[in-house]
């Protein structure tokens, strides 16, 4: 099956600063890809390039189209939610639905109205009268009613409380996601979505430092709790990070045989956040 996103040698400079440095990755259909990196690593630049919001060097195709030249065509098949505050404050809910219905060929108005009817959002209200959570629900209702092939989420739940956040992702998975569609998401609350992800991309200083499926990440990385007597043996295996827990050492290993590790102590699957911290401190 064809790739939804194909990036080859993607670069972007602001003066002397390289925001993106020769980035390569592909996103296939039916994947939920987490794009993770510290602030200023280049995540937003990658998303902006995909969405046709910025110019770039290198090859980037979205559904076979070039985003810097065909933004409005790509947007028929790509949906986008950024930090939720971007719905204009003066927009009335029913007008927002009418607008998207008129300009978007793949929008299903009934579906949007069905999502909204499950919320407390009044149709005659302006966006500025809604709570932040309601604005997020409205935006999500609009986006989920679009028959898109790629959904790009940039910190979509920033500033929302935990109930909304859980709901947001649950709704996405049950009502939007299927094997024909892909989701590309960036967030700082990585622990909330790590169970949803199928693929993981780490970005640091404009470069990709990890790009793998969740399955091979969980096979590749292992955390071992080691007693004092085996610490030296563990260190010999080049752990990528170590920390102290209740007087014992916990080591994170990359690409070390399970059988070897089992001899050292108790093996855990590390969280994405742990791997992230380790990879960021490495090099």
């Amino acid at each position, binding site marked *: 099956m064809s790739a939804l996103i194909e990036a080859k040698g993607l670069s972007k400079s602001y003066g002397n600063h390289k925001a993106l440095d020769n980035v390569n990755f592909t996103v296939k259909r039916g994947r939920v890809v987490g794009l993770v990196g510290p602030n200023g690593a280049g995540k937003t630049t990658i998303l*902006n390039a995909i*969405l*046709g*919001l*910025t*110019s770039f060097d290198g090859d980037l195709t979205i559904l076979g189209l070039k985003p810097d030249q065909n*933004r*409005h*065509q*790509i*947007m*028929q098949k790509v*949906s*986008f*939610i*950024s930090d939720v*505050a*971007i*719905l*204009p*404050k*003066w*927009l*009335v809910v029913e*007008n927002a639905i*009418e*607008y*998207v219905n*008129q*300009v*978007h*060929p793949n929008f299903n108005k009934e579906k949007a109205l069905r999502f909204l009817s499950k919320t407390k959002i009044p149709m005659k209200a302006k966006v500025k009268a809604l709570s932040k959570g309601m604005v997020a629900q409205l*935006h999500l209702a609009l986006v989920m009613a679009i028959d898109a092939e790629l959904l790009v989420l940039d910190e979509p739940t920033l500033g929302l409380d935990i109930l909304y956040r859980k709901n947001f992702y649950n709704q996405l998975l049950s009502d939007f996601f299927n094997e024909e569609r892909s989701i590309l998401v960036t967030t700082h609350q990585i622990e909330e979505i790590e169970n949803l992800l199928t693929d993981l991309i780490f970005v640091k200083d404009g470069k990709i430092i990890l790009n793998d499926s969740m399955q091979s990440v969980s096979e590749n990385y292992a955390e071992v709790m080691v007693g004092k007597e085996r610490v030296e043996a563990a260190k010999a295996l080049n752990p990528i990070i170590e920390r102290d827990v209740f007087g014992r050492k916990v080591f994170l290993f990359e690409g070390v045989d399970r059988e070897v590790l089992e001899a050292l102590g108790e093996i855990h699957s590390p969280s994405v956040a742990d791997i992230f911290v380790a990879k960021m401190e490495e090099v």
Partner: protein
Amino acid sequence: MNALTILLKREYWEHKGAIFYTPAIMAAVFAGLMLIGSFSADEFVVTHNNEYTFSDHLPKLVDKFEELSGREQKQGVQLALYGTLVFFCGVMLLISLFYCLGCLYDERKDRSILFWKSMPVSDTKTVLSKFATVCFLIPISYFVVITAFQIYMMIFLTVLAWIGGSWGTMIWASSNLFGVMFNGLMALIMGMLWLSPFWAWLIFASSWAKKVAFMWAALPIIMLTIAEGWIFKTNYFIEMIAMRGANTFAIMNSNLHFTTHKEIFDIEVMRWYEVFGNSEFWIGLIVAGVFLAGAIYTRSVRNET
């Protein structure tokens, strides 16, 4: 066509205060003042001149009007109708100025541009919809309000005629109301189009201003004017801009000018259909096209203020 309709609707939703409520409130205030004026007219006349009151005077006025020739009656009624445009078109030009300065700046300021750009609408269509708003949607909306006010005025005059002892049919017969409406609408639209290079320049400035869009729009004009005065000791550039503005006002009120048969403007006045035959009009449209192309490009690359 369908796409343009929804984009214009969008502009109307965002700016209905300036596009519709402003003239509507103006019209309501004028209408109210006319009512109050006629009710209290007796008081004024009595305090200033004890000989007779407004109510006494009204029948004489009505008689006087009916004694006029048909041509003079027409002129009188139509002058009153066309005269209303003077008040509205000044306000219309002012709100259009602010509309253009904000139309591509505000969306970047509140970051809603990311929402608009997440829709399959090209930058070209977006920018053209802003231009169409100022050249067509705004004058049409003002025209609707003006027409409502004109009809109110006709009814008002008719009632006065009744009180003065006439049926008032002459007022309606001499109004040529549909002609007045059509000429008024076309004068407003052609006046706005005459100013199209100015609107397009403001839209362009709005697309790239990082702060106060007004400054970004005004500075180059001021600098060019100063530079011209310094190098050539002339001021053609600013005169040309001022002339454009004056012409716009004259075109919008050309109906008034040609109904009075008197020189009410100091400059040569074109009827709305004469604008088409003027080369400056077409040059202006070409210049507007260049600025709009600039705005389209800038909108495609700039997402922040």
